[in-house]
């Protein structure tokens, strides 16, 4: 297992290096270069030259690249051209919200998608199956922001059931300890002896999670349905029934245990959709996460931040996929023992 992980990490290195080169070129090739991105289009050539000098952009490209890589290896992802804040600092502040949001979406997708897929498979080609198929068709066809606003309108504006702004109510004055709104809310609840902060944090994450989770939900439902139908026809399921096992055990142990394999693979593939979808979801629900930061940085032409964030997203994506693959190997003895 350890070898498997090491091998995967080593395989990721050239990909990340390649991406860093591309991103480096991307910033250099910006129209007018970084300086005019900072100063705006109407900057005088003299000022641009000054800024280029100050940023060290006049030296040979390869020197600049190796310096850039050197800084990255030291955990220095640069600073914003716009407000001078360090990327790492802001990232640590914002990332917990994004994690909370994507986890919520993942819970929603898996928690609902697997039961739906199982029901559909059991009644395959019946009415329930048809309904589930239509739901998943909607799920993959509705953009995060359309669903987000629709949910916000019905459950927020109309019914006043759930909040639609941010991941916590700032008026509650919950102290930021971990920056995870739910964990901070729970801590505040424990200390204050009132459930309000915790409940508030949970309420805030519901609608964004549903909006972000709709595509993975549809995909997980579809794949679960297909996997359960396929596994149900396997010889070993017939063996399990021939042994006199209860239908429940056949379902849970023999069918689901195998159906989890393709489902796990698909969850890994959907991790990318979740990360990218977070950009949109955070914009819809005004969440101060990493996703909305990407959008803000692009709007502000803050390309150092964009460059670093894309790299960080890629790393996160790889880590998530590694975790999924480890989970897959764990579920599949044929991989674990080879």
């Amino acid at each position: 297992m350890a070898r498997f992980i090491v091998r995967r990490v080593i395989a990721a290195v050239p990909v990340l290096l390649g991406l860093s080169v591309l991103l480096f070129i991307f910033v250099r090739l910006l129209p007018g270069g970084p300086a005019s991105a900072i100063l705006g289009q109407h900057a005088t050539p003299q000022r641009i030259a000054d800024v280029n000098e100050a940023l060290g952009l006049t030296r040979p490209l390869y020197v600049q690249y190796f310096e850039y890589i050197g800084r990255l290896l030291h955990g220095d992802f640069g600073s914003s051209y716009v407000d001078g804040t360090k990327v790492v600092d802001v990232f640590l502040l914002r990332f917990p919200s994004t994690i909370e949001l994507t986890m919520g979406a993942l819970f929603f997708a898996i928690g609902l998608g697997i039961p739906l897929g199982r029901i559909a498979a059991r009644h395959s080609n019946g009415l329930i199956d048809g309904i589930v198929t239509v739901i998943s068709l909607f799920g993959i066809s509705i953009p995060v922001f359309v669903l987000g606003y629709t949910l916000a309108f019905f459950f927020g504006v109309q019914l006043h059931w759930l909040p639609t702004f941010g991941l916590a109510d700032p008026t509650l004055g919950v102290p930021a300890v971990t920056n995870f709104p739910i964990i901070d809310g729970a801590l505040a609840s424990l200390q204050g002896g009132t459930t309000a902060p915790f409940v508030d944090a949970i309420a805030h994450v519901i609608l964004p999670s549903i909006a972000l989770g709709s595509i993975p939900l549809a995909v997980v439902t579809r794949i679960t349905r297909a996997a359960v139908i396929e596994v149900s026809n396997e010889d070993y399921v017939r063996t399990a029934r021939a042994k006199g096992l209860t239908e429940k055990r056949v379902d849970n142990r023999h069918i689901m245990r195998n159906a989890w394999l393709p489902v796990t693979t698909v969850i890994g593939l959907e991790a990318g959709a979740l990360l990218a979808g977070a950009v949109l979801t955070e914009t819809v629900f005004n969440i101060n996460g990493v996703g909305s930061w990407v959008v803000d940085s692009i709007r502000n032409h803050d390309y150092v931040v964009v460059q670093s964030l894309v790299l960080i997203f890629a790393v996160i994506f790889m880590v998530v996929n590694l975790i999924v693959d480890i989970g897959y190997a764990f579920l599949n003895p044929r991989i674990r023992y080879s």
Partner: protein
Amino acid sequence: MTATAATLAATPRTSRGLWGDALRRLMRNGPALVGLFFIAVFVMGAILAPILSPYDPTVGKLADGYQSPSLAHLMGTDQQGRDEFTRVLYGARISLSVGVVAVLFGLIGGTIVGSIAGGAGGKLDGLLMRFVDVMLAVPGLLLAIVLVSWLGHGELQIMLAVGISYSPMFARLLRGSLLALRESDYVIAARSMGASPVRILVRHMMPNALTPLIVQATLFAATAIIDVAGLGFLGLGPGDPRIAEWGEMLTDASSYLQNYPYLIFFPGAAIVISAIGFNLLGDGLREALDPRLKR
């Protein structure tokens, strides 16, 4: 032996039967026809927009603003008094054309890279696939977002950005099928009969490798419509006040969610229905081209 090899090698080329069969199966597939109908409605709406609506999609009278749906304004009017129905129709022009062209760009790029990699194999294959890996390392829409921010605003830029972000997936898909086909009996038979590598690739392998590509392209058309709207929504759309775009319409309307939800509803529904159309068609194509999948 030669006779068998010849018939084997000839099988994939009698593909008119295959396509004819697929078309017949598609025409008997209810959901796929519904999808085709949705797409047709939007295509007609886009083409006939000037005939279907007397209004201008980009200029309105402020005095006419915020009207609820009525006979005069089927979908109401927006904050600037522009007719929403007209804007949805003209928006279909952008969404469909940009979405479809973006997928074509991706398909072309992916086909070039994938067929070189899968056809040539060896070092070139390894190099190209590493490049594909690098692009795939940036999750989903994020790649398109970054590319647009780099290429600048405009329709062509969006097509390119979305197309480029899809091309690695097409490349990987095509390369995968080509590698599998390389080991298949009829390709080995053709090779043993001395057919040239290029001829084998073009005549024997590509026609068969294309079917999954076509299915994927149709499904990606749905994703592209959503992604193009997503870019517009994030303020990375065509950025031209003279054209209506569904995603930008949503951004504008989001400020008025409280009082004028229909401004969100209609462009939103347009995106969803057109995406459903392509998804249904894509699933239908997949079943039609691979009858074993029929459930």
